[in-house]
């Protein structure tokens, strides 16, 4: 794949994709670029901030309240789990348990702890419990490219 970037003044950021034939790699690339425009409005210390999808590490439901985790911050989201899941459909974010949605872009490794539960290790060193039921969904994200 050849990547060419060029500065064009007074025009919005534009991405042009040229491909010899439309395949899974191309659709995966389009999906990733589209997902860059998605963001969450979160509350932190009474302020409202926008958190981009790429900054999101995971979203967790704690006692029916939704929290979004970035590399440094934890913010409250005014969404339900199903709303967050719908918003992140067809992106790199995937449900990994009943209470957690993880960004696979920050996934470093999946491991099984001695024939026991499954763990997802993120690139910031955090570990999340993965339900076996959702392992297929994680695999599907990587199959899409």
């Amino acid at each position: 794949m050849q990547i060419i970037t060029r500065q064009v003044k007074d025009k919005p950021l534009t991405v042009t994709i040229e491909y010899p034939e439309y395949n899974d790699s191309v659709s995966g690339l389009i999906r990733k670029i589209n997902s860059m425009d998605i963001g969450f409005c979160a509350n932190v210390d009474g302020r409202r901030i926008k958190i981009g999808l790429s900054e999101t590490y995971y979203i967790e439901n704690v006692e029916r309240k939704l929290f979004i985790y970035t590399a440094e911050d934890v913010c409250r989201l005014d969404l339900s789990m199903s709303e967050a899941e719908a918003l992140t459909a067809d992106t790199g974010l995937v449900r990994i348990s009943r209470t957690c949605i993880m960004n696979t872009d920050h996934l470093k490794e999946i491991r099984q702890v001695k024939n026991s539960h499954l763990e997802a290790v993120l690139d910031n060193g955090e570990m999340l419990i993965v339900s076996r039921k959702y392992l297929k969904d994680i695999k599907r994200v990587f199959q899409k490219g």
Partner: protein
Amino acid sequence: MIMRKILKDTCILAALMILAVFLISIIWSGVTDEIGLVLKLFGLAFILSVLNCLFDEYIYLSIVMNYVVKYFAITGIVMLFGFIVGWFYPNNFWMAFIYVGVVIILAYFIDSFRVKKDIEYINEQIAGRVITSANFAPEQTEA
């Protein structure tokens, strides 16, 4: 992968064929013993699928404990269902432990193998992603 899809589709198609053929037979000649047995099996399969779905959603245990708990839960339901529909009697109810045991052991090995393969696949993809991003070097021009 293709073989698995074919086997899965075969099972679904066979189930649909059985239901379609039996539906016509029920209209024609009512519920016979054979049709009743198959419908009861479908009913039991539905109850077990609901239980399995709830179990996977709400209970986090190790893979071995998961199957041990499932074994006793499923055996209990099969026995209860068997007593209600007349499959089991007080002198042969223990057979449920054998029937469920065989299915659970097979499911355990298939599940363990599948989980291992899925983890390997995901980790391979992550490793490939790291190599690709390390080789990233865009050309830059100005218009």
